[in-house]
């Protein structure tokens, strides 16, 4: 610790602190423009100049100067004030004073500083800038005329997002921020640059002229897309969610959001929201009242027993899932409940459940930056969980944490400095992990000895044998094993979900075995983190929204619909027609089932087939809890009232329970108390940041079954997955996300494209044994020859017409 004096206040801080940090600790506020707590010190703006007794004769930038023992700092002497005023005068010399029409007005740091320092005149005169405003993309407006060259956008895009879309161009008075060759912005559109811009140079276009900053109410919530559990602040005016508001102190991620979190909010107040219940009359869905709709549903569910089934999206709150589960299992008498097509949760529900003795990951997102080595299985974790991707970026770029990747394609993660990629044949992950385990055993690197059964099973997975199977050199497998063993702390990450059937129980077993053998469980910075697809995927497992004793899983429920044994199906928020594999099978089942009830925000492709459609609320209109993928339980409250006649599902299922003669929890707190996995967490005490549910590990070495999917010779291997800009099918209703990624595509390697003479953006037909789909080709340097990748979100060209749930599907391409 170092002790120093700032404005006559003594303060002790860590020895790597800067004067700015120390001042903050001492409660002295020093004005800044270019400094951001998330970024490395830069020292560009000179607003933070202070006087230091020991460094007389010049003014010292507080944000870049480290503290020394006995330093005497004065933060607001006349020379300091004079210098700061000059800095502001110089900035305002070229900065346009168009505050009345600038969206940043009221939230602008330059405006505030000019006010604070009473810069009401300027001793200097010069022309304003005449840069052309970049309107070339639908989300981020770049007005260089307002830029103060603090460089925060450039740095955040590098240090945290690792995209590097922006740079300083030219020199001196001609300096500006821009892209390579000063072209239009083409990036991930996470909007991190907007969030840190102190002025109106970078603005969210969907929010332009929607509201003054101060006229909005800021409501804290939890993002409703992926399982990361990012906290968001919604800007609300007149009961409409108009934007997301950046709060650098919010959540473990310090307010960082991805494109979905920041720009995907528009679905909440979308015109397409269902506002009234719909009932099918004479083949048409027509608007009806809640009483009529619910009485129809009650009639069908009463005494239905196992002839009824429910599929729910893990986007519902824990409390809603509790009620829906109660409704089905107790009032209706059916154990046929499931989510995520029945396999999208298998890695955790079955895999980690058996291997770790708990249906959850052992590690949390916070462990990533505390680790020594990150082993990522597939590069897709960046696309499925972008903010977790930021954590990996920061771990690798800023902390030098090693990154090892096993993946069937390259990706953004494999371009991080020092990243080591083992490019394996699609679907061979389990075999490869087994080979790594084999090396741990053979080279005596295992901390926990292998159980005899596992040791025997691993004999079939020598690096040489597996090299043939996976296409990864035996030595590379050995090196990975040695690196994993050598790291004191190591964390394994993989993504699960609807589009990742390969991330199944077997993969989880294989990964868990590595962690067990390597002694990487039960300590900080180590373990396994399965990144689950939806915002409450972990909650659905904790609530136990899976088939009960003798119950059918999702695939069996659909089969039951087709066979006639399931006569009433309640689908809460899932959109199987687009997101489950084998569209033809799904459609046949939904056509066949006697009575289909769909509860959703929108008239989805699935809802269009329903007999009764119940309009329900988005996360912004309800109360309850979501459990992030690392078992962080977080509370949300309503930011706006229900849209139209829509109702929170907590109310809907509670009402159905009561109509069927049962007793439902009256409050969310009551329902929450019923979740045994959250014993010890008090609903009423859940504050910002939530609470982690306890995870007690009982590791067991389970022998994984290995099947390497084969694809017929001469066919391409089609991999399914998620696009960075989307999560499930809900983001297709978020205008912002759609505006930058709105249609289905397939990624193809450069060499295949050249061979087949396929141009970027050309329409191609993919044909498998189950069907054909027409999508746009994207020539991608990350794909290997013979391998294709297609995201699964898009209804217009739904990839499940050719994909029937295999980890790798054989397809042909035609033009």
């Amino acid at each position, binding site marked *: 610790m170092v002790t120093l004096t700032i404005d006559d206040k003594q303060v002790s801080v860590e020895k790597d602190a800067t004067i700015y940090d120390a001042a903050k600790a001492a409660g002295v506020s020093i004005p800044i423009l270019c400094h951001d707590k998330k970024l490395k010190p830069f020292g560009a703006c000179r607003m933070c100049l202070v006087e230091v007794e020991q460094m007389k004769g010049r003014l010292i930038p507080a944000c870049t100067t480290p503290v020394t023992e006995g330093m005497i700092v004065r933060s607001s002497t006349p020379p300091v004030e004079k210098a700061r005023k000059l800095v502001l005068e110089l900035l305002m010399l070229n900065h346009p004073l168009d505050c009345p029409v600038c969206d940043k007005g009221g939230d602008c740091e330059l405006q505030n500083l000019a006010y604070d320092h009473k810069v009401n005149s300027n001793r200097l005169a010069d022309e304003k800038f005449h840069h052309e405003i970049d309107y070339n993309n639908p989300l981020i407006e770049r007005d260089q005329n307002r830029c103060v060259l603090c460089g925060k956008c450039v740095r955040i895009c*590098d240090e945290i997002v690792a*995209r*590097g*879309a*922006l*740079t*300083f*161009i*030219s*020199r001196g008075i001609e300096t500006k921020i*821009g*892209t*390579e*060759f*000063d072209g239009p912005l083409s990036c991930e559109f996470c909007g991190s640059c907007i969030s840190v811009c102190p002025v109106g140079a970078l603005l969210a276009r969907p929010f332009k002229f929607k509201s003054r900053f101060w006229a909005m109410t800021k409501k804290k919530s939890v993002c409703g897309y992926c399982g990361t559990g990012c906290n968001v602040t919604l800007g609300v005016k007149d009961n409409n969610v108009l934007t997301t508001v950046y709060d650098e102190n919010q959540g473990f991620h310090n307010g960082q959001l991805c494109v979905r979190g920041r720009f995907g909010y528009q679905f909440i107040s979308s015109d397409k929201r269902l506002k009234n219940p719909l009932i099918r009359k004479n083949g048409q869905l027509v608007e009806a009242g809640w009483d009529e709709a619910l009485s129809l549903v009650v009639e069908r569910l009463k005494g239905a027993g196992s002839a009824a089934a429910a599929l729910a999206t893990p986007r519902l709150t824990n409390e809603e899932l509790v009620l829906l589960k109660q409704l089905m299992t107790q009032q209706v008498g059916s154990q046929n409940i499931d989510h995520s097509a029945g396999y999208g949760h298998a890695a955790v529900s079955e895999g980690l459940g058996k291997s770790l003795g708990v249906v959850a990951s052992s590690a949390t997102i916070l462990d990533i930056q505390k680790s020594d080595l990150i082993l990522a299985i597939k590069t897709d974790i960046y696309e499925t969980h972008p903010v977790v991707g930021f954590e990996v970026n920061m771990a690798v770029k800023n902390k030098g944490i090693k990154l090892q990747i096993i993946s069937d394609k390259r990706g953004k993660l494999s*371009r991080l*400095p020092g990243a080591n990629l083992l490019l394996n044949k699609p679907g061979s992950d389990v075999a490869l992990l087994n080979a790594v385990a084999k090396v741990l055993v053979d080279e005596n690197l295992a901390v926990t000895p292998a159980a005899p059964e596992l040791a025997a099973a691993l004999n079939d997975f020598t690096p040489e044998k597996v090299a043939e199977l996976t296409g990864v050199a035996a030595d590379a497998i050995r090196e990975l094993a040695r690196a994993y063993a050598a790291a004191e702390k190591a964390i394994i990450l993989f993504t699960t979900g609807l589009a990742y059937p390969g991330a199944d129980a077997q993969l989880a077993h294989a990964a868990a075995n590595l962690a067990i053998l390597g002694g990487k469980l039960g300590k900080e910075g180590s373990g396994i983190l399965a990144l689950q697809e939806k915002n409450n995927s972990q909650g659905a497992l904790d609530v136990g929204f899976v088939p009960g004793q003798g119950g059918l899983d999702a695939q069996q429920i659909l089969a039951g619909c087709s066979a006639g044994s399931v006569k009433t199906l309640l689908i809460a928020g899932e959109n199987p027609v687009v997101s489950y594999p084998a569209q033809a099978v799904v459609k046949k089942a939904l056509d066949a089932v006697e009575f289909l009830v769909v509860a959703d925000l929108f008239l989805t492709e699935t809802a269009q087939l329903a007999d009764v459609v119940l309009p329900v609320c988005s996360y912004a209109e309800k109360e309850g809890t979501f459990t992030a993928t690392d078992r962080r339980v977080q509370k949300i409250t309503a930011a706006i009232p229900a849209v139209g006649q829509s109702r929170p599902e907590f109310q809907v299922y509670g009402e159905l329970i009561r109509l069927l003669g049962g007793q439902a929890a009256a409050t969310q707190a009551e329902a929450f108390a019923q979740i045994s996995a959250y014993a010890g967490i008090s609903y009423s005490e859940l504050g910002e940041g939530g609470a982690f549910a306890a995870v007690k590990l009982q590791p067991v070495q389970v022998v994984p079954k290995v099947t390497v999917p084969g694809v017929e010779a001469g066919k391409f291997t089609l991999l399914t997955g998620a696009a960075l800009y989307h999560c499930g099918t809900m983001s297709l209703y978020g205008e912002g996300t759609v505006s930058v990624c709105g249609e289905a595509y397939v990624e193809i390697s450069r060499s295949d494209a050249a061979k087949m003479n396929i141009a970027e953006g050309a329409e191609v037909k993919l044909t498998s044994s189950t069907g054909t789909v027409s999508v746009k080709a994207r020539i991608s*340097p990350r794909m290997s020859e013979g391998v294709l990748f297609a995201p699964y979100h898009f209804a217009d060209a739904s990839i499940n017409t050719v994909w029937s749930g295999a980890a790798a599907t054989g397809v042909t391409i035609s033009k």
Partner: protein
Amino acid sequence: MSEAVATTETTEVEEPVIDLALAEEVIQKYKDIPGNLMPVLQGIQEAYGYVPRVTVDYVAERLNVYPSQIYGVLTFYAQFHLKPRGKFIIRVCMGTACHVLGAERIKESFHDRIGIGHAETTPDRRFTFELVACLGACGMAPLAMVNDETYGKMTVQKVDEIIKEYSSLPI
């Protein structure tokens, strides 16, 4: 690596077809040296006479740096050129001494004869014309240079001679 890539960037002077093998050669030379971006870019400029856009993307991929970052470096330093340059770079000094002794007329004479202004290149890529602040030989003012050759005590007649001389050389 010998694939030739035609660029689509439109410049006043048509960009030639770029053979990336030259860039790869430069990269190989500095591949494993930390802080190799500057020497690589200098090497590329030496190989092509300027830094073609396709080589920026290529270097970005090979050295794993952002294309934007490379562009930032290229525009910061005056030494880098992003457009094709002439074989003969004519520099006319506009510094104080040269200015006093008639640099303006020298500049005008060059302009009249080769038809291009500051930082421009003739369509045949024979000449690039640049005005510079000081060449450090004020005793010889007014001063001009063609590549590494210095021409002191410039006159309008000498401009004619220089143009004649360099127009007769092969390009």
